[in-house]
């Protein structure tokens, strides 16, 4: 199981923004989706997820609203704002640069 410290610092924000760029979700679904899509490699612990969600909302990148789920329960759904979409683009470009650089170093010689 991967601890939050195994994720590179700042990657969690990117994962959350990318996941929410598909559709608005609540916290539990975000964690689930990341785990499923990464084929159980990335397991976001809630201890890291919720503070990150609140921080992203505070920065104006996410908007949250209480809505009822399919099961009829009230849940806090997060959606990407326009500023959040711009931030996602920025973080994606940064990630590309970083991973390319790492790959170059690994494959040298």
């Amino acid at each position: 199981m991967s601890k939050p410290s195994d994720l590179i610092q700042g990657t969690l924000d990117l994962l959350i923004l990318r996941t929410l760029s598909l559709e608005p979700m609540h916290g539990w679904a975000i964690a689930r989706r990341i785990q499923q899509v990464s084929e159980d490699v990335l397991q976001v612990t809630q201890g890291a997820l919720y503070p990150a969600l609140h921080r992203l909302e505070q920065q104006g990148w996410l908007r949250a609203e209480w809505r009822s789920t399919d099961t009829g329960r009230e849940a806090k759904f997060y959606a990407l704002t326009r500023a959040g979409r711009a931030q996602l683009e920025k973080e994606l470009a940064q990630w590309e640069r970083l991973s390319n650089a790492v790959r170059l170093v690994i494959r040298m010689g």
Partner: protein
Amino acid sequence: MHLRQWFDIAFLRLRSLFGRGRVERELRFHLDRETEANLRLGLSPPEARLAALRRLGGMAHVQEECRDMRRTGYIENFVRDLQYAARTLLQSPGFAFAIVLTLALSIGATSAIFTVVDGVLLRPLPYPQPGRPRRNGAGNRRRVGAGTRSVEPALSSQRDRSSHFFGSLRGNHRHCRDCLLHSRAAGHGRRSYDGAARGVRSAAWR
């Protein structure tokens, strides 16, 4: 940052300051979903609940971290500090009284001393060229002549020479009244008094 965004953030902070139950509600929803998932995996209800709690890593801790992200912790801590201070002071009224007395005396003494320093040293005298004051006293009268106590002749002779002399009249109403009385008594000095008054006014405006 846009103004609109700033307002949104301010609103969010205010809300998280007063709506403390929201984070807990959100986490409780998560916990319930996690428990359901564990049940589907075949765990018994208590085990499912425990496993979900373990994964969450402590409700209170996560709640606290969420609130830290909103940076309302400072305000809450400050309010709690104030409450603590009030409680402690109420527990020992004698000590509180001594502290209040000490503060009152020291603030009073400091402001009294500063008032004197401000009036005497810092503030310039209230007329033009305050650095060149001229004593309007016995020295002038002696030059005017023996027997007369009127400053009127001295006043009209000095009117054109030194404007700050007239300026000094503004700060010293007693002299003004004196020269009014004397010029009335002399009968001829009315115009020169008016001139002096004009001089006073122009000195005041200069």
